[in-house]
């Protein structure tokens, strides 16, 4: 459905993206993940035919975005980073206008608008001026705008930004519901979001793909190690030295307070046992010890920032 091959975009001297290649199958939901400035929006803009790549190509349904932009644009619903809203229009007129631009047939205009309003829970504000809507509602109008022509491909740049938690989960449900019928690419910084809705993740950093896989496989990247959370009552100065001296303990991080610590250890139950024993002997006052699952966040941070983000107390 979507095919991207050695896509490169330069803004002057800056390489926004470099030799990006991936493909998305029909009906798949793919998440773009990456820190600020990674090139997520740039990639999306090229796929939507908004911008030309410096080199490489992107195809949607077999049409090259550069050579057949109109054919590509007919098939795409796009939510840019800033929702493209006209402040002086009413929600329903705006959606109708977008539907007309996208080439929805005259006879289907009204039903398309109603469908988009319904799916994004905007029916009660359909007669309001966009200007007077709150940020979250504006974002939802932006999503409705992408949906209104019932496109084959949906490109959503940070779709849940600015929404309240209930709305976030509703939009995620909506995306899950669209899965299968539409091919969806969405970008986000929020890990639970990709975990909740995406079948596949593409992690981008500094314009390059650093990992591309299904969720399970990515989470498994960290296997062989585990994370242990420790909460104690009386921390003492020698704690870091003592704990990191234990067999199987690789790193000790300080937590939110001096009472909370996180340890990277080898994946063996004996390690937990020996830590607990040591804490008791030293009289630190053990309150809690638990093994945290290696989550996507770690994978993400590791792949994009290396280990530099967390303060290493002792290694």
């Amino acid at each position, binding site marked *: 459905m979507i095919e991207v091959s050695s896509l490169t975009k330069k803004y002057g001297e800056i390489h926004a993206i470099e030799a990006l290649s991936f493909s998305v199958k029909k009906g798949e939901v793919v998440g773009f993940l990456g820190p600020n400035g990674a090139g997520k929006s740039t990639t999306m803009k090229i796929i939507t035919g908004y911008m030309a790549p410096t080199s490489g190509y992107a195809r949607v349904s077999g049409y090259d975005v550069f050579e057949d932009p109109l054919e590509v644009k*007919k098939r795409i619903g796009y939510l840019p980073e800033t929702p493209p809203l006209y402040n002086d229009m009413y929600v329903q007129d705006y959606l109708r206008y977008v539907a007309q631009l996208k080439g929805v047939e005259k006879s289907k205009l009204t039903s398309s608008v109603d469908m988009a309003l319904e799916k994004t829970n905007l029916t009660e504000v359909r007669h309001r001026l966009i200007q007077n809507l709150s940020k979250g509602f504006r974002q939802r109008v932006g999503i409705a705008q992408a949906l209104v022509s019932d496109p084959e491909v949906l490109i959503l740049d940070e779709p849940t930004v600015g929404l309240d938690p209930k709305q976030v989960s509703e939009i995620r449900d909506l995306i899950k519901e669209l899965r299968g019928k539409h091919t969806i690419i969405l970008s986000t910084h929020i890990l639970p979001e990709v975990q909740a809705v995406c079948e596949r993740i593409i992690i981008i950093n500094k314009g390059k793909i650093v990992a591309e896989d299904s969720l399970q496989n990515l989470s498994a990247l960290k296997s062989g190690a585990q994370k242990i959370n420790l909460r104690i009552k009386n921390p003492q100065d020698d704690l870091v030295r003592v704990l990191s001296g234990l067999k199987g303990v690789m790193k000790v991080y300080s937590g939110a307070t001096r009472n909370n610590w996180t340890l990277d250890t080898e994946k063996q139950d004996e390690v937990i046992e020996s830590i607990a024993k040591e804490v008791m002997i030293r009289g630190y006052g053990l309150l809690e010890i638990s093994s945290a699952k290696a989550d996507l966040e770690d994978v993400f941070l590791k792949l994009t920032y290396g280990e530099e983000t967390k303060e290493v107390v002792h290694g």
Partner: protein
Amino acid sequence: MDKVSAIFQKELRGFLINPNFFMVCGLCTVIMSWIYPIQLNIFAQELQNYVYQTQIPKQQLNIHYAVFLRHLSYLNLMLILVVPALSMRLFSEERKMRTFDLLLTSPVTSAQIVIGKYLALMVAILVIIGLAFLYPAFTSIFAKVNWLILGIAFLGIFLVSAVYAGMNLFCSSLTESAIVSYVMAVIFNVAIWFVGIGGEIVDSPLARKIFEHISLSQHLSSLVEGTIRTGTLVFFATLVFLFGFLSERVVESSRWR
């Protein structure tokens, strides 16, 4: 075609729900209602004088020249300032509010965008020209009016404003700021009157002919006197097309940056 009409309707609605448009119309009406009676009065006085002295040139005794054409020249002056105000947000606002992203990722061509916006702008300008037409129309109650010649004179002003609209739309496409677009557009509208002035300073007859041919005022003056020449229509059409084309290029170029 559907796309053009969608953009046209949207922009036209934009004008009609915008209080600024009505303020501009109101302002124009106030100015015209103030100046027009004065012109009419002067004309009436000259007519009275004619009874006593016969030296006054005949032209000045024709209501078409003495009143209507002055009315039109004031209208022209207003359009120089008003058309930029109407056109300034057409593209600038889209850039600033990031709604241009929507147009550029929709299956519409740059030409369709420009044509839709241009037509909406022309309708808004027609409203103002229509308001101006009311004054001579009401004069016809107590004076004899040659409708054909009056109509052609108004056609002339309409064609000039079509050129303004093209240029000013082009100015709007160049910048994100409505103010910059306004100032630039006024400068364009004033400058185009000076293009033909070259005809008065060059000596060679060929150069003079060329300048006369590209002079807006030459073409307009033949129209306001009631003669339509094909060359004149072609001239205006060319200008409109030229600036329409330039705007289309600017829109197109913002896609491939």
